[in-house]
């Protein structure tokens, strides 16, 4: 069953996560288009579960990130920090030749990955 609710803005992933946490397998997901949110509930969803879904939508804050979105933000920040802090080969000058060669390879890989991400 579909429930349509008018909503000005939505963080679809965060709302989806909240609904799944509350309703489990009784919801297959949500869709959004032209200011209308559609809740895709299973026909077996009870009236209590439907009311619960509506209540979650009513208190939905699009600015609040889901756990997955927070992880993505942290990963992005980490990438930015590492981009400006590349591996320094000088720190390996006193190491054995094999270790220095390994460090050089890692530094090369780091630059290749950064280049791919540009």
């Amino acid at each position, binding site marked *: 069953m579909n429930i349509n609710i008018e909503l000005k803005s939505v963080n679809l992933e965060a709302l989806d996560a909240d609904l799944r946490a509350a309703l489990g397998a009784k919801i*297959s997901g*949500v*869709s*959004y*288009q032209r200011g209308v949110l*559609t809740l895709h509930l299973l026909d077996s969803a009870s009236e209590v579960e439907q009311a619960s879904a509506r209540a979650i939508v009513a208190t939905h804050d699009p600015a609040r990130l889901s756990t997955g979105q927070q992880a993505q933000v942290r990963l992005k920040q980490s990438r930015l920090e590492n981009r400006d802090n590349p591996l320094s080969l000088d720190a390996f000058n006193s190491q054995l030749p094999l270790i220095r060669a390994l460090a050089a390879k890692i530094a090369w890989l780091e630059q290749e990955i950064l280049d791919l991400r540009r």
Partner: protein
Amino acid sequence: MPAIWTPPITWNPGYLVTAGDLNAQLRDNLEFLKTPPFTNFIANESSDYTTTSTAFVYTDNTAGKFNLTIVTYGGPILVCFSGNIIRSTSPQRVYFDVELDGIRLAGDDGILGVGDPSNISPGTPVTLLWWKTDLAAGSHTAKLIWRTTAGTATLYAGAGTTNGDLHSQFWIKELS
């Protein structure tokens, strides 16, 4: 006004051909063959389409959008869709199917699927074609349905999105 198809007459010697016969058998039937039943939607929406649904759901159940009705004369139809989709997470798979008169054309995982579409606009282009035969004459309604396995799937809809202002299209045509 759409052209009308009239089953061809078997002409017999001595039969007096009337203007009505000629208009129906030649003019109207030729016009029909030149312009068979066709219906079309080109997305130019205020926002793109998005879903997190892991079960197939209507892309847009509004009549005249990804929900088209065609009146056929018993010939096969070609159902087509083209658009660009974008993912939000990885791994993420997006599947499409078409529901015709309440029954899915392909079933299972649908007509086509995309594994990890691009997450950079304009995303990944998707084109769907389905040839449907053995269809009785009359009114038929086709609806585009889709699902994702994770995250949010977005279908661009000409909504002004930067680098993604792309107009997806859904159309059905009877072919004789």
